[in-house]
C-alpha cells in the first residue's frame, strides 16, 4: 500500500464528504500513513487466488420476509430528529447536482 499524499487524503475526505482544513490535513495525513504501512502486511500473505473471501462469518443464505405490511413510524416519529422540517417533509438546503 503506497503512502498517501496530502492531496490524496484531501480527495478521500472529499469523497467522504468531510471538510478537512489545512491543520487537520497536516495532522491526519502522517497518522494515516503510519496505519497504512501497518496494514500493508496484508499483501505479504501472498496471492490468494484459491481462497474465497468471507463476507459473512456464518454460512447463512436465503433469509427473507413475507410481503406483508408491518406498522412503521408515524410521520411525527420519522421527523422527530429532523434539523428542519416543513409540510411534513425534511427540509434540506439547496441541492447541487442533478435530479436523481
Amino acid at each position, binding site marked *: 500500500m503506497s503512502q498517501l499524499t496530502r492531496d490524496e487524503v484531501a480527495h478521500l475526505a472529499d469523497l467522504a464528504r468531510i471538510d478537512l482544513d489545512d491543520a487537520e490535513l497536516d495532522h491526519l495525513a502522517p497518522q494515516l500513513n503510519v496505519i497504512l504501512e501497518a496494514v500493508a502486511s496484508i499483501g505479504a*500473505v501472498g496471492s490468494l487466488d484459491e481462497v474465497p473471501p468471507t463476507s459473512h*462469518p*456464518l454460512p447463512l443464505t436465503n433469509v427473507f420476509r413475507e410481503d406483508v405490511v408491518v406498522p412503521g413510524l408515524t410521520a411525527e416519529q420519522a421527523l422527530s430528529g429532523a434539523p428542519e422540517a416543513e409540510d411534513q417533509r425534511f427540509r434540506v438546503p439547496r441541492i447541487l447536482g442533478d435530479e436523481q
Partner: protein
Amino acid sequence: MSARTDGSAELIRKTAVELADLLATGETTSVEITQAHLDRIAAVDGSADAGVHAFLHVDAEGALAQAAESDARRAAGEARHLLDGVPIAVKDVLTTQGLPTTCGSRILQGWVPPYDATVVRKIKDAGLPILGKTNMDEFAMGSSTEHSAYGPTRNPWDQTRIPGGSGGGSAAAVAAFEAPLALGTDTGGSIRQPGAVTGTVGVKPTYGGVSRYGLVALANSLDQVGPVTRTVLDAALLHELIGGHDPLDSTSVDEPVGAYVTAAREGVRGDLSGLKVGVIKELAGADGSGWQPGVMERFADTVDLLKEMGAEVSEVSCPTFVHAMATYYLILPAECSSNLAKFDAMRYGLRVVPEGDPSAEAVMRATRDAGFGDEVKRRIIIGTYALSSGYYDAYYGQAQKVRTLIARDFAAAFENVDVLVSPTAPTTAFPLGEKLDDPLAMYLQDLATIPANLAGVPGISVPAGLAAEDGLPVGFQVLAPALADERLYRVGAAVEAALTARWGGPILDKAPVLEGVR
C-alpha cells in the same frame, strides 16, 4: 441478612442473581435496588472532568417508574423473568426509544431514537429497569473510551487510567457498582478488553447469536451485543435473556439459545477433566514483546489452574493470526466508512450551517467535520481508500480472503481442542493520554481479541487476578467454536470459582474504595 440496615451499600455489591433472589423472597424491592444504584451513580460517577463518568445519560425518573411497575407485577405474582426488577445500564450505541443515544459522538448529540433495539426491547419486556446509557469511544472506535466526544470514563481501580474501550462505560459502571448488569458491544474486543482491565466479566457471543437490530453499526460483519457483569453466572443469565433469532436481523442465527446458565453452574463444580484446552501460540507472547510480564504471569497461572482442574492443555498454532490486525483494520474502516455516511445533517443529528447560502453538500461537509472526532475521521478515510476503485482487490478484497484463512485456523484448531485460551489484552489499564497520539499503539490492545470477531466465534474474558508490577486487573480469554458459547460459561465459571476461592473473595473486593461511598 437484612436489606434494611445500611441497605444501599449492601445492595449495590450484590450480583444480579443475588438481587433476583432477594426480590423473589421479598426481602427487597426493585425500587429499593434501583434507588440504591442511582444513589451510587450520584455519588461516584461525577462528570467528564472527574469521577468515574461511566454514564452519559442517567434516567432516574424512568428507571424508578419501571422499578415500581416491576414491584407491582411481582406483588401480583406476575414477575416476567428471574431478572424482572434488576436494573441494568446500556451502552450508548444501542437505540433506546425516548432516551438519548449519542454513540459517544457530537454528531448525534441530542438524538432521541423513535425505536428500541431488539435487545433493549427484550430487557424491557423482561422488566429490567434501565438506569441509563453508558459512555464509549465514539462510534465504538477505540480501546480506551478516550475517543468519546463527551469526555473519558475513568477506571474505578485507578482514575488516572483508562477503563478500556470502546465499552469502557459499561465495564466501569459494573466495576464501580453503579449497575449490577450492563449491555456492551464487541467488534474487536470492546466488551472483553474493558472487562480485562476493570476486573469484570465480558462476553462476545457467537456472531449472529444476539440481534444487532438497533445496534448502530460499526463493522456489520464483526459487531455483536453481549453481557457485561461482575460474575460469569450473571453473564450467562443476561446472555440467555438477550440471545436468540431476530427476524429483523438477517444475520441472526436461527438456533435455540444455548444453556449458558446450566453450563455456568456446571463449571462451578470445578471439574474440567476431559476438556482439551489450546493455548494460542501466536497470542501467548512467546517472544515476550509487547506483552506485559504481569499479564503473562497471571495467564500462565490460570493455565496451570485449568490443568489442576483436569483439563488437558496443549499449544496450538494459528499462523494467520499475525495478520489479524491488518485484516481487521482494513475490513472495519471499509464497512464503517459506508455505515457512517448516513450522518449527513439531513434527517437527524447535528447540523452545522456554514456562513452564506450553503448548499446541502456544504452543510454535510461542515457537519461531518465538526461532528466526527479524529479517530472516526481516520477510519473513514482509510475505509474509503480501501474500497476505492483500483485498490479494492489489493486491500478490502485481500483482507476478506485472509479472513477466510483466519477462520480456517480456528476450525483446524478446534478439531483438536474444545476451547482456545489467551490473555485478553497485552497490558493492564494504561494511563489516560498515554496512547492518544499513537493510533497504532492503541490498536495493538486488540491483538488477542480481534481474531474471534473475524471468524465469528464467541469469547469471554474473566478476571485472572492482578498484575504484580501495578496491582491492576488482568483478563483471561477463552474462545469456543461458533455456537458453542456454553463452553465459555463452563470454563469461565470454573476459573472464576477457583480463583475467587484463592483470593478469598471476588477480585473487585481488592479494588480501591471509591470516594463518595456511603
